[in-house]
């Protein structure tokens, strides 16, 4: 007599089929399920989405002009009527400026990671796959950039290029290329000796298609997670450069420069002064938590 317990051992085709159907779940579904299990990561993602979408929709949400203020209403405290987050030193609505400013701050956080992610991965994959003299030239050249403290290199480049968000993005991209390339290179080196690469080679695949179909597929998740952790660093770095006056020119809003403009008011209205920084901090923190969750979901070891 077959009881439920012995079902494990039965090898009739129908049971095998049943078991397979039960376990069928695509990798992406599994990753999403694992990610949503982590409550902090999930909540952070929602907070990020709220910040991103409200900054994008700034013209719809904001009720004031980001550049024009009423000088009579300057430095209103947080929670004032009509100005939930108060007003700045020129009487402009803080919430409006935070929303408009966030567009540039977030752009300056994400764009360098995209640029450096593409260029750095390309250099690292080429160096790791071909090895030899190509590897030496690429990696030793990039090593020089490690001799600079990141923030100083970024300051030097963006000061030389002149004021502007675009130049900040270029500067931070240059700072991020070497570490991305290093990660890509070491990941590719690990994959290069695998048997499936050898199999692809012996079946006549050329370098381009091996890199495209085998190498990139195998190193992508590691690079992707690494790049997401860099977004928060990039955001803080960009706001730092902007804080030094290398970003947008006044009166345009951006979180870093807003913090700099308000820093003199710390003795008059301390709570108001820290608001732009609070947004930088919350966004960076949320990005870090999301990328931690992603790393766990993708099961990547540091």
């Amino acid at each position: 007599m077959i009881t439920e317990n012995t079902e494990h051992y039965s090898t009739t085709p129908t049971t095998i089929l049943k078991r397979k159907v039960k376990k069928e779940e695509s990798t992406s579904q599994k990753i999403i399920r694992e990610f949503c299990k982590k409550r902090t990561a999930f909540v952070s993602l929602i907070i990020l989405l709220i910040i991103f979408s409200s900054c994008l929709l700034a013209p719809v949400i904001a009720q004031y002009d980001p550049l024009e203020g009423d000088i009579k209403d300057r430095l209103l405290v947080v929670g004032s009527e009509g100005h939930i987050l108060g007003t700045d030193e020129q009487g402009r609505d803080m919430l409006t400026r935070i929303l408009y400013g966030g567009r540039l701050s977030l752009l300056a956080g994400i764009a360098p990671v995209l640029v450096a992610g593409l260029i750095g991965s390309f250099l690292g994959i080429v160096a790791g796959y071909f090895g030899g003299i190509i590897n030496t030239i690429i990696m030793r050249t990039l090593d020089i950039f490690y001799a600079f403290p990141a923030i100083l290199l970024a300051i030097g480049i963006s000061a030389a290029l002149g004021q502007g968000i675009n130049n900040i993005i270029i500067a931070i991209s240059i700072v991020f290329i070497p570490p991305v390339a290093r990660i890509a290179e070491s990941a590719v080196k690990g994959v290069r000796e695998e048997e499936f690469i050898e199999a692809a080679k012996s079946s006549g695949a050329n370098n381009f298609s091996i890199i495209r179909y085998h190498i990139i597929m195998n190193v992508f998740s590691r690079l992707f997670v690494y790049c997401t952790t860099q977004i928060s660093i990039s955001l803080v770095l960009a706001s730092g450069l902007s804080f030094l006056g290398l970003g947008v020119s006044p009166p345009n809003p951006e979180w870093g420069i807003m913090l700099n403009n308000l820093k003199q008011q710390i003795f008059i209205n301390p709570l108001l002064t820290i608001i732009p920084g609070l947004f930088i901090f919350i966004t960076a923190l949320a990005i870090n938590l999301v990328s931690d969750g992603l790393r766990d979901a993708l099961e990547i070891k540091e």
Partner: protein
Amino acid sequence: MIPTLLGVSIIVFLMLQIVPGDPVNSLLPPDATEEDRQRIKQELGLDKSLIGQYFSWLGNTLQGDFGRSIIKRLEVTDLLFDALSNTFILAFGAAIFAFLLSLIIGVYSAYHPKSWIASLGNIIGLTGVSIPNFWAALILIGIFSVMLGWLPSTGMKGVGGGGIGDTVMHLIMPAIAVGMTTLGVMTRMIRSSVVDLLQKDFIITLQAKGASSFIILMHVLKNCTPTILTVAGLQVGYLIGGSVLVETVFSWPGVGQLIYQGISQRDFPIIQSGVLVISILFVIINLVVDILHAVVDPRIREA
């Protein structure tokens, strides 16, 4: 190390080359003749080729001549070295704060993962890497200068001025602000490496032999020193770099303040020399860390 330093000098030199605008134009009156242009160009050495310019710039720099500040009309070298000592004081204070506290919190939370200190360590590890240090500086001023009135927010007089007590009072808040990120990174790292070590066979053997917890702690510390050194060496760069931003908040008379003024006045020789000198120091510090590695870790010495 020499190739790295040469590479650094090339990059810093190239930074000057991408500055938009012709430096000759800014020095000449609008009605200057072509002859004047050539004369100024020759004086500045701009008539040479790019490689020639690089070598004459490198020669001057090696002799400690960083050129003249465009705005202040002063030798950059003089400005820089006063500022450098102040930045060192700040980075040193931040290093003591971050290294000591991370060691205590990291080791303690590895031993007692359920304690409140371990939770504090978690929070520090998480916030430390996300917090912009210039913002942390403002919050500290808001709490300790504005609300409590305990600490001065500005007015650091620099080396030799005001005495040690005065300097320390001025140092507390900037040092915490600068050291915060390092504290977060190091706490995380020390905890995880101590947790790993505590599960190693030799620690279990020690426990089985009945060694005191102090002796076990000494074994743990000795074995995680190389890891800590590597990260600490890299963090020194962040500490000096981070002070650039924090100095502007506290009006700390260091290299960061100098670079900040250089940016707002478009005084490029100052920015360039500041970046160059700090980067060279960073390279030297990392070399010292490598040497220290060999001193504390016999495995590296014998390899």
